[in-house]
């Protein structure tokens, strides 16, 4: 059963990341391969706060979200200034730089060996240790994220974002600030990624740079592409489908030495296939 609950918890955490990536890639329409970096900062900060300063879990997650809001605005800001293709460079650069920091700043992150011993969350005198208990917490986090996403998409803010994706200049001609809307979306994406990071670190109790590298960013992009851009349903279904994939792969007899490469190869194939044959993903709108 633990196996099943672990799958549920991880999928729910990745739903938050899916919402984050969907906001940037699907809704604002910018290509980003650095969302895993923001996710990682959230995870490392939460780990640091609960381990070194014994900050309560929820406060640590909140602080991580706030830092990631700022960070994501900073990371996305160039895309609002420089043209799309230059931002591809920025995005790759930020991801590689973040990996370098996670791997080489041994004092803060434990370096390539990772950071073990992140304690399980304590909330109101209860410790969430077992995957089945943590599932309550993760479900709560996912539900909050989904409700927030649903609310903004049906509010005028969602309409504004859709309009911006179609024609920025026309939106500006109607007296709206394109910059403010995009920065708001980036901030929201940062909050989602940061809280996902906090949940992730506390759940696994061990984090290392491999969860937050370029491959992880590509995985996040694959989730959104497979699930479908710009819809809540798409962001939810993507992680559940893609995290089930390694379990299915485990049934096929692949030597463990190539398992990681095979998984990443399949994500790549999915990206190509969906772009060619189904750019709207399973339950989304056309990219």
């Amino acid at each position, binding site marked *: 059963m633990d196996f099943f609950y672990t799958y549920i918890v991880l999928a729910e955490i990745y739903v938050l990341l899916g919402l984050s990536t969907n906001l940037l890639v699907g809704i604002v329409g910018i290509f980003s391969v650095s969302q895993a970096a923001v996710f990682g900062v959230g995870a490392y900060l939460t780990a640091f706060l609960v381990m070194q300063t014994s900050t309560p879990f929820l406060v640590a997650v909140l602080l991580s979200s706030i830092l990631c809001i700022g960070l994501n605005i900073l990371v996305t800001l160039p895309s609002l200034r420089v043209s799309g293709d230059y931002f591809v460079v920025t995005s790759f650069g930020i991801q590689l*730089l973040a990996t370098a920091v996670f791997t080489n700043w041994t004092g803060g992150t434990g370096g390539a060996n990772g950071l073990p011993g992140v304690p399980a969350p304590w909330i109101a005198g209860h410790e969430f240790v077992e995957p089945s208990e943590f599932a309550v917490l993760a479900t709560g986090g996912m539900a909050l994220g989904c409700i927030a996403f649903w609310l903004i998409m049906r509010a005028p803010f969602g309409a504004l974002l859709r309009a911006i994706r179609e024609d920025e200049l026309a939106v500006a001609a109607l007296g709206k600030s394109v910059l403010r809307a995009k920065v708001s979306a980036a901030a929201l994406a940062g909050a989602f990624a940061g809280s996902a990071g906090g949940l992730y670190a506390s759940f696994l109790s061990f984090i290392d740079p491999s969860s937050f590298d370029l491959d992880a960013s590509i995985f996040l992009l694959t989730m959104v592409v497979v699930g479908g851009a710009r819809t809540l349903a798409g962001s939810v279904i993507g992680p559940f489908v893609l995290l089930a994939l390694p379990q299915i792969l485990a049934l096929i007899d692949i030597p463990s030495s190539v398992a990681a490469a095979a998984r990443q190869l399949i994500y790549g194939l999915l*990206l190509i296939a969906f772009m060619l044959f189904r750019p709207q993903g399973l339950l989304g709108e056309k990219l």
Partner: protein
Amino acid sequence: MLWLHLLVNGLVWGCALGMVAVSFSLVFATTKIFHVAHAAVYGLGGYLAWSALKHGMPEWAALLVGIVACAITGTLIQKLLYERLDRRGATHLVILIASLGLSAVMQNAVAAVYTSNVLQFGLPWAARTTAIGGVLLTTAQMLTVVAGILSYLGAMWFAHRTVLGKRMRAVASNPFLAEITRLQPRQVHIAVMAIASAMVAIPGVLVPLDLGLQPFGGVPILLTATIAMIAGGVGSISGAFLVAVGIAVLQNLSLLVIPGEWSIGITFGIFVIFMLFRPRGLFAG
């Protein structure tokens, strides 16, 4: 004399990087596609040459196999992926995601077949060193410099002196006009992808002679090369090549003060400075 050694290393590495930057620039300026999978094509060449060598081919033929195979791969990428997406009216973002996917597929296929461990060519002649002005250079390094300079001159000659090159520049400057004047942009795109993929395979086979093969080495190299292209001014072959050499030298000299694992920081810092002060590049028209 550490600095001299680093300077020379930088120049050698710059020639390799220059070939990546110039070839990427040819593709980007002509097709407008940010061809992320170029990184994987770079990596592929070396591995195929390695396999050809292990199957008993003569050394020169094995290196040639790597280069020709990459040219064919580039053609296929253009025909089977980019052109199809373009026909379906795919947006820029969609093509970019597909290119990223292709890059992941190619690199991981290589990793699955050859494992992620570093593979050595183990050719004695390539590792033989010659002292030039107090600095020892391997034969592979000298070949890289010669190939880099020849590739740069070749690209200049191609773009400015050949019919295909002129068609390429016409397509790059105005694809719509090129379409209606029967310059046949689709054909030009395929030709450019073939040439650029062959060119990126040259450092792809020469650099591993020295440093060995790694399946995931291409991404940071391509990132540095695209930074060189942008800082040099998109569309300028000289700009891409010269800035690539400049960045490589800076990267190497920075080792005097900053440990090597942070060199991505140096590269990215150069990009940020250019974005702030000269976003259109040094040699922009």
